[in-house]
């Protein structure tokens, strides 16, 4: 009968779906230790090389027999990571170890009390090994709350040597005026769909410009205590002017040439759509992995700044750390895992940076020394520049994100309102108007009743 056939088809479909659903992938050849405590780790999913490296390390760890620990890593994509953590915590199933970025440590770990202090768990040697400027970023009230893995400066300058050569630009620009003149030389050599300079756009303007702000103004949008707006200054006027000039010259694209925006803006450079760009140090790994044929044609330098001073901060250090859940029941074992990953064996920890093609900087003295001693020739320059910039870089600020958005919107106004046909007075007035709007927004945020000033200063 017709119905029997329908039922049969349905049953087949259900079976097929269960078959598809139970596809196992990468944990088949892994050793499962009987009777071991399972330690769960939540990590954020990054590039393929980073994910595979993590899985490799997990397999290596699990192949250690008789240590009583079975490590289970769950990867979550960026937009769902915090949801997954929140939901796990709500269900009393918080992971033993979780990844967290430096910028989120205070608000998402220390304040709600999700992280266990690590000084005793990790041991004195591991804690002492952390580089001093990184130590500040992971500590609060004398205790370390998250063990760092890497830092990566958020703004470096990348350029295509061949496109420079065609345009007659002889060296990487180090000041804004050099940059503008280089752009003006490159522009006539480009086709439609190609642009001179890549810059952060949209939301990225909020966080990718911290380095430029510190470099140009000596500080950020608010003072150390976070209760005073500093945007109305000559430094910010100059920085706004810079954005005005590059956009007025038509050197920058109106939208993101790379699908994810600033985080993968280097693709625009590799695909011949940009002649030069600001990009984070993580881009180096992307060039090596995905566009190896243009690797030799790419030059890396510190970003062009107002005065070209190579000893000033030009980027902020972002990066990732690992924390142990305070609500977990196996903290000692979790600490064993962390130590194995990040501090016991220098060579093992340094392996990550090799896999990263030296696009990230080390955070412990031992690893830093190891890398400098063992870097291969092809990566020597990258290591040097990443180390240099990150050593001068400052931590990402932790003040209210709305403040950074207001600053980003200010820069965006420059991009939108600039007009090359109008003169200097228009430029000045546009800059000033944008600044006063930003100041207004920031002041209203500061004067809100639930605004918090810098807790690190109290």
């Amino acid at each position: 009968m017709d119905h029997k056939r329908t039922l049969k088809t349905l049953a087949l479909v259900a079976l097929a779906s269960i078959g598809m659903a139970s596809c196992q992938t990468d944990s088949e050849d892994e050793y499962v230790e009987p009777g071991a405590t399972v330690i769960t780790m939540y990590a954020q999913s990054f590039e393929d090389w980073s994910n595979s490296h993590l899985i490799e390390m997990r397999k290596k760890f699990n192949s250690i027999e008789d240590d009583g620990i079975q490590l289970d890593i769950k990867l979550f994509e960026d937009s769902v990571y915090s949801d997954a953590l929140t939901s796990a915590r709500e269900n009393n199933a918080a992971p033993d170890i979780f990844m967290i970025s430096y910028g989120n440590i205070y608000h998402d770990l220390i304040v709600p009390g999700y992280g266990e202090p690590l000084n005793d768990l990790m041991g004195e040697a591991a804690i002492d090994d952390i580089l001093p400027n990184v130590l500040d970023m992971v500590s609060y009230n004398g205790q370390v709350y998250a063990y760092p893995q890497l830092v990566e400066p958020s703004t470096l300058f990348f350029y295509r040597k061949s496109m420079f050569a065609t345009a007659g630009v002889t060296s990487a620009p180090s000041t804004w005026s050099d940059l503008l003149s280089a752009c003006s030389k490159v522009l006539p050599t480009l086709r439609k769909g190609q642009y001179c300079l890549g810059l952060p756009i949209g939301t990225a303007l909020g966080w990718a410009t911290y380095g430029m702000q510190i470099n140009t103004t000596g500080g950020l949008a608010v003072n150390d205590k976070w209760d005073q707006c500093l945007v109305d200054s000559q430094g910010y006027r100059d920085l706004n002017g810079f954005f005005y000039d590059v956009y007025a010259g038509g050197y920058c694209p109106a939208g993101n040439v790379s699908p994810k925006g600033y985080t993968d803006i280097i693709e625009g450079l590799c695909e011949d759509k940009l002649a030069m760009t600001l990009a984070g140090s993580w881009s180096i790994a992307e060039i090596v992995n995905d566009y190896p044929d243009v690797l030799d044609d790419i030059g890396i330098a510190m970003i062009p700044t107002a005065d070209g001073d190579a000893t000033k901060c030009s980027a902020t250090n972002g990066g990732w750390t690992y924390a142990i859940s305070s609500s977990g029941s196996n903290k000692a074992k979790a600490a064993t895992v962390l130590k194995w990953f990040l501090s016991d064996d220098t060579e093992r920890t340094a392996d990550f940076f090799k896999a990263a093609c030296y696009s990230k900087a080390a955070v412990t003295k031992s690893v830093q020394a190891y890398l400098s001693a063992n870097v291969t020739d092809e990566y020597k320059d990258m290591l040097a520049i990443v180390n240099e910039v990150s050593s001068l870089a400052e931590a990402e600020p932790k003040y209210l994100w709305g403040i950074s958005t207001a600053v980003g919107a200010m820069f965006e106004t420059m991009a939108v309102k600039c007009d090359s046909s109008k003169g200097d007075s228009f430029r000045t007035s546009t800059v000033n108007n944008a600044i006063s709007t930003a100041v207004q927004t920031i002041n209203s945020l500061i004067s809100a009743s639930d605004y918090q000033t810098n807790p690190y200063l109290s």
Partner: protein
Amino acid sequence: MPDMETKKKNFTKRKIVKKIVFGLIAALVCALIVFPIIWMIPAAFKTRREIWQLPNTFWPNNFTWDNFSKVLTSSLNGYNFLSSLGYTLLVSVIAVVLSLFVNMLAAYAFATMEFRGKKALWWYFIITMFIPGITILLTSIKVVYFLHMVDTIWVLIIPGVVSAYNIFFFRQFFYGIPVSLEEAATIDGCSRWGIFWRVFFPMSSTPMVIIGVTTFMGYWNSFVWPSLTIVNNTKIAQVMQVIRILNSNYSSNYGIVIAATLMAIAIPILIFAIFQKKIIAGIAISGLK
């Protein structure tokens, strides 16, 4: 003065011209509708260099199966596409079966039986038709957390099983089934259940196909609800949820996203191909209220 013959000829000519023009318009519209899908198909075979390359080419110069193999074999950033295909299929099939059963039974009760409170109950059901999903989104999440259904396949299936619109639709259809058939079954000694199974159910293949297909599509294409309720158990994540995550991660190597999307829409298109006559006929019925 034009005689009847010329008049007829002119009229026929106008008719032919009209037919041609309309035919061209229809062809143009069809081309416009189909074009994005046609454009997408070769993109699944392009490497990351080619997919966003300027100028675009239709056929890939470096044809590759890598995108498909990557989507099907690896556990991309914690989510397994094949697993999501399987679980979405499972969820959709179970949901369709449950949904048809529950809704048809309710429609049968309303269509053929009298009982105290029938009018009130009917209004109770109808009112729920006018509650948009957004209004109850946040509070339904609280309800399913309370019921400990989150991160299981049941949270995906159960909340959407009852649809007042479907009950309405079936009730309309059942009204059209002659009383005499029920009579005959009753004489044969059938109970209420028996009448349902032996008379109404076998006759309902057309509305069952339409409602079944639309319900299946609703589940297959669901995104918001799975994204909010399947968070930690990534194995059972639904296919549209996974595609969105792939879209965030692989926006540069877009061939991967395209390959996954092609596979994800293959099944609905297949269903359309199988049931196409009944579905299109069904649209006409659904308009009659």
